[in-house]
């Protein structure tokens, strides 16, 4: 369960997030939708304790991410990039992450297998293609077998097979009771994956609810999105 309540983030003189509030519930895929620069990544960074908000709280299972004893067993996150230093092998990268949270070494091989990187585990991360880097990032997120998954634009850089794999994986994760929060600006993708939708625009949440509620009388999610976000000209 993710609870974001009144989060405000100011950087310099710009208000990046303005009292952002929403929840993501277990057993459901929550799509976090918004144009580029709307505040999706900033919200996720606050949620993960990477950035500090000026006001509000962002909690995972009732506590801030940083206050959990073994955070990787509570939430797994996939942000942009693999998170691995380019001259380290994928296996070495996962080994240090596992050690940091006292996870067994065997778990490294399990997640490598899960994302299909076993054969390339000895390769340096710098040699990875974009798609392989994303899969390594996902493997990192899954190391602690967390009940909450937080993913920033997870299908970026994936090929069609990878996109389908990711979609199935996220659906299955929710089906087994996980809380899945993913940000995206790809409407079609979200419409097929998400149960709930939160739309953010210029730092404010402009719509939130089940997919059906947010689409409402519009023909598609895309129409609903554009209607709510494009009030001031083209916003890409």
């Amino acid at each position: 369960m993710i609870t974001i309540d009144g989060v405000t983030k100011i950087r310099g003189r710009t208000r990046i997030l303005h009292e952002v509030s929403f929840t993501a519930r277990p057993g459901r895929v929550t799509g976090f939708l918004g144009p580029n620069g709307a505040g999706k990544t900033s919200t996720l960074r606050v949620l993960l304790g990477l950035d500090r908000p000026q006001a509000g709280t962002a909690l995972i299972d009732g506590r801030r991410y940083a206050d959990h004893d073994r955070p990787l067993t509570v939430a797994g996150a996939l942000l942009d990039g693999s998170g691995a230093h380019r001259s380290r092998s994928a296996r070495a990268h996962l080994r240090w992450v596992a050690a940091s949270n006292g996870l067994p070494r065997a778990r490294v091989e399990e997640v490598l297998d899960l994302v299909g990187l076993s054969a390339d585990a000895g390769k340096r991360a710098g040699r990875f293609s974009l798609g392989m880097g994303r899969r390594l990032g996902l493997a990192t997120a899954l190391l602690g077998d967390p009940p909450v998954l937080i993913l920033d634009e997870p299908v970026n850089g994936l090929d069609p097979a990878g996109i389908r794999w990711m979609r199935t994986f996220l659906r299955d994760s929710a089906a087994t009771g996980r809380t899945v929060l993913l940000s995206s600006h790809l409407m079609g993708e979200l419409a097929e994956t998400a149960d709930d939708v939160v739309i953010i625009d210029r730092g404010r949440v402009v719509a939130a609810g089940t997919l059906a509620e947010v689409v409402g009388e519009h023909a598609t999610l895309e129409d609903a999105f554009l209607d709510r976000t494009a009030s001031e000209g083209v916003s890409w």
Partner: protein
Amino acid sequence: MTGPRRVAGAVHAEAIKLITLPSLALTVALTWALTALLGLTGRPGGVLVYTQVGFLVLGVLAATHEYQGGGQIRASLLAVPRRPLLAVAKIVALAGIAAPFALVAAVLAGRPGATGGLLLDLVLAAGVGMLVKHSVGATGLVLTAYEIVSPLVRTHLPEVARLPSSAWTAAVLLVAIAIFARREA
């Protein structure tokens, strides 16, 4: 996970990071080789000053590699979100892993007693690396301070130079940890 186990996990993770980074192993190997080779020139006062340069670079690289391509710093902060703990684990792991390598280097330089001094320099350089984040900038800063500014200070302001190097290291580390704990990743 209880307190001590959490600390142990964080230190263990940092140790794996250091051991699996090829550039660090290369820096140690080059430092040893340079120390041994320059030892042949019979420089009066010994060659420890060059060994020291190697350990300064090692400290900078150990700290700044977090910020090089790939965004590893975010993975680190997600794994160990308590930043003072992460920073301290880095320093402890670095000093612990480097100790035997520093001893060998000091022996090669003919001054086994200098091991502790090398470790202090190493850790200070890591603190600067944590602050500056950028490997070229941190190298420039640390080496300028050690090789160019410090000899001047020793000549002109001897009372400042009399501060023990452990005091300098402690001051830099405190500032580095405080800033690291506060800034956005």
